[in-house]
C-alpha cells in the first residue's frame, strides 16, 4: 500500500525553502515518506487497517454519486441541465430525469464521501487515488454539459470571429442569431461581447469550423485535460515544497465542486487554473521568467489570474520575473491587437459590468438578507471593493515582509470570491489549487469552509415541498 506511494516520492534532493515559499535558498531534501515524524495514535487510526476499506468505500461512493448525476442528466429536460444538443444521448436509456432533490442528495453524499476520503486519504494507495481522480473526470466528460451554458458562449464567440467575420469583443452572440449555437447561449449573455481574455478567445477559434457537437467535445477534452494538468502541477509543486503530495492532490482532484460544477460545466476557469499553477510550479523551480509568463497567459484566459503576479513579484524580487511579465504581455498584446484590434481590451469593461450583477449565491447578498435588507446596493458594492483593497494591501505588505506568497495569493482569490456579488460555484474553486500547497493551513480550512457554505446554500429545495 504505502510502497506504491514511496516509489512516487522524490528520492533525490531538490531545492526547498526556508521561510516564505518565495525564498529558495539552497539544496534541501524534498519530501520523503520515511522522514515523517513518528505517528501519533490518531495517525495510526487514520492509516490503520480500517482506513483502507473505508477510504475505498468513500471513493466508490463518489464514483456512484457522479455516475448517478451524469446518467440522469443525460436525459436532459431538467432545470439542472442547460438546453443543449443531445451529445450524451447514448446514456439516456440508463438514466431518468434529474430533479433538484436527486441532484442535491447526490451532491451532499458526494461531499460527505469527499470529507471521508480526505480524513483517511493517507491510507489509500497512490494508484487508487489517481485512478479515482481520472475516473471521475472521465465520467463527467462522457456526459452532457452540467449546470452552465458558458461553454456555448465560448463557442459562439469563436464562431463570430471565424464563421461570421465579426469581432467577439465588440459583438454579442446575438449578432449571429441564425448561428446553430445561438439558441443554447444563456439569455443574459446573448448581447454581451466576450468577457474572456484575448488568449482564450483566440485559442477557441480552431473549434469554430468543427460544428457545434464536435466543438463541445473538444471543449470538454480541453477542460478535462486542464483540470488533470492542474492536479499534476499541484502534485509537482507539493513535492517541490517538501510536502507529502498525496493529500493536496486528493483534496483538489476529488473536490465535488471541481468535478460537478467546473469540469461538468466545461469552464475555462480550469484553463486559467492550469496556467496559474504552471506559473507557481515554474517559480518554485526557480524559472521565474517562465513562471511570470505563465501567469500572464492565465490572465489572458481569465483576468482573475493576474492576482497572483504582484505577490510573486514582491516575494521573489527578481529581474527575470519582470522581464518575463513584460515579454509575455508584449507578445499577447501584439497578437491580440493583430487579431482583434484595439478592442481586445474591451473585455475589461464587460467584466466591470458583470461585477455589478448579483447572484443569489453570493455572500454579500446573503449577509444583506441576514440584516433584513432586500439585497446588495451600489454603496454596498463600493464598501466591498474598499474591503477587498484593504485585504490585498495588507497581504502585499505581509509578503514584502516575508509571508508565503502562495498563501497570500490564495487569500486574495478567496477574498474576491467572498466579496463579489456575482459568485458562481467555479469561482469558489479558484483558491483551492493554491490552498492545498500553501504554507498557511488556515487558507485550506477557509477555502473548504467557503466551499461547504456554498453547497449548503444550494440545499433549500431539499426542505421545501415544491
Amino acid at each position, binding site marked *: 500500500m504505502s510502497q506504491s506511494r514511496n516509489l512516487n516520492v522524490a528520492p533525490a534532493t531538490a531545492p526547498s525553502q*526556508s*521561510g*516564505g515559499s*518565495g*525564498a*529558495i*535558498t539552497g539544496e534541501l531534501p524534498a519530501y520523503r515518506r520515511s522522514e515523517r515524524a513518528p505517528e501519533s495514535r490518531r495517525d495510526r487510526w487514520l492509516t490503520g487497517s480500517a482506513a483502507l476499506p473505508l477510504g475505498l468505500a468513500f471513493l466508490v461512493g463518489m464514483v456512484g454519486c457522479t455516475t448517478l448525476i451524469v446518467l440522469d442528466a443525460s436525459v436532459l429536460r431538467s432545470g439542472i441541465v442547460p438546453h443543449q444538443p443531445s451529445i450524451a444521448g447514448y446514456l439516456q436509456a440508463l438514466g431518468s430525469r434529474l430533479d433538484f432533490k436527486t441532484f442535491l442528495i447526490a451532491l451532499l453524499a458526494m461531499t460527505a464521501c469527499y470529507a471521508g476520503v480526505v480524513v483517511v486519504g493517507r491510507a489509500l494507495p497512490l494508484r487508487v487515488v489517481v485512478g479515482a481522480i481520472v475516473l471521475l473526470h472521465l465520467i463527467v466528460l462522457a456526459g452532457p454539459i452540467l449546470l452552465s451554458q458558458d461553454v456555448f458562449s465560448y463557442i459562439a464567440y469563436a464562431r463570430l470571429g471565424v464563421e461570421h467575420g465579426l469581432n467577439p469583443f465588440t459583438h454579442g452572440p446575438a449578432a449571429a442569431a441564425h448561428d446553430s449555437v445561438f439558441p443554447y447561449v444563456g439569455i443574459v449573455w446573448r448581447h454581451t461581447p466576450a468577457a474572456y481574455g484575448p488568449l482564450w478567445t483566440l485559442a477557441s477559434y480552431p473549434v469554430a469550423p468543427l460544428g457545434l457537437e464536435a466543438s463541445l467535445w473538444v471543449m470538454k477534452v480541453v477542460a478535462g485535460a486542464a483540470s488533470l494538468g492542474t492536479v499534476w502541477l499541484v502534485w509537482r509543486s507539493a513535492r517541490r515544497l517538501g510536502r507529502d503530495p498525496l493529500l493536496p492532490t486528493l483534496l483538489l482532484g476529488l473536490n465535488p465542486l471541481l468535478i460537478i460544477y467546473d469540469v461538468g460545466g466545461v469552464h475555462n476557469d480550469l484553463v486559467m487554473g492550469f496556467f496559474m499553477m504552471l506559473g507557481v510550479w515554474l517559480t518554485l523551480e526557480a524559472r521565474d521568467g517562465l513562471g511570470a509568463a505563465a501567469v500572464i497567459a492565465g490572465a489572458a484566459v481569465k483576468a482573475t489570474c493576474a492576482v497572483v503576479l504582484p505577490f510573486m513579484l*514582491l*516575494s*521573489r*524580487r*527578481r*529581474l527575470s520575473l519582470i522581464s518575463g511579465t513584460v515579454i509575455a504581455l508584449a507578445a499577447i498584446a501584439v497578437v491580440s491587437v493583430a487579431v482583434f484590434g484595439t478592442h481586445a481590451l474591451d473585455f475589461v469593461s464587460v467584466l466591470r459590468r458583470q461585477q455589478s450583477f448579483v447572484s443569489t449565491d453570493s*455572500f454579500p447578498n*446573503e*449577509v444583506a*438578507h*441576514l440584516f*433584513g435588507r*432586500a*439585497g446588495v446596493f451600489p454603496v454596498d458594492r463600493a464598501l466591498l471593493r474598499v474591503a477587498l483593497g484593504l485585504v490585498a494591501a495588507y497581504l502585499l505588505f505581509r509578503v*514584502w*515582509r*516575508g*509571508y508565503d506568497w502562495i498563501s497570500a495569493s490564495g487569500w486574495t482569490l478567496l477574498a474576491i470570491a*467572498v466579496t463579489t456579488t456575482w459568485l458562481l460555484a467555479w469561482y469558489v474553486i479558484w483558491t483551492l489549487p493554491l490552498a492545498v500547497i500553501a504554507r498557511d493551513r*488556515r487558507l485550506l480550512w*477557509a477555502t473548504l*469552509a*467557503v466551499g461547504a*457554505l456554498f453547497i*449548503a*446554500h444550494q*440545499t*433549500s*429545495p431539499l*426542505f*421545501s*415541498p*415544491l
Partner: protein
Amino acid sequence: MTSVPSTLQRLPPWLAPRDSEAPGPDRRRRLIEGAVLVAIGLLLAAAVIRDVVRQVGVDDRVVVDKRTWVHYTHHNIKLVSVLTNTRNNIDFACGPPHAHATYRVCLMLTGGSHGTYRHISGGYRLGLTGFDVRANRYDCFGLPRHQHLCPRRGVVR
C-alpha cells in the same frame, strides 16, 4: 538566492523587505487574524443558514399561495406564477382563470402561510402576455385598488 537591491536594504527595519518571516511565531498577529477569520466565518455561516431558512419559508408560502389561487378561481392549473417579496410576506399569484381566458387574475395574498389558505387582500386583472406592471393592470379590487396599483378602472377585456 533572492536578490534584494541595496537601496531597499536601507529602509527602516519594520519596512525593509524580508526573504522570510521573522523567526518565532508572531502570536498576537496570528490571534488577531484568527479572530477576524472566525468572525467572518461565523457571519457567513449565519447568513447562509438564515438564507436557506428564508428560502424554505418562501417556498412553503408559494405552495399555499398557489393553493389559495386555485381555491379562489376554481381552476386547477399548475402554472400559477407567484411573485414573492423578500422583505414582507405579501405575494401576488397570477394565472388565467379558465382555459379560454384572455386575461390573468392576480391575487394579493397576505397573512400567515400556516393554514390551508392565505388571506386574499385584493387583486386585479392582467393581460395574458406582458409584464406585471401598473400600466398593464386593470379592475383592481381590495387593497390594490386603495393603493392605486391599477392606472384605470375598466371592464373585463
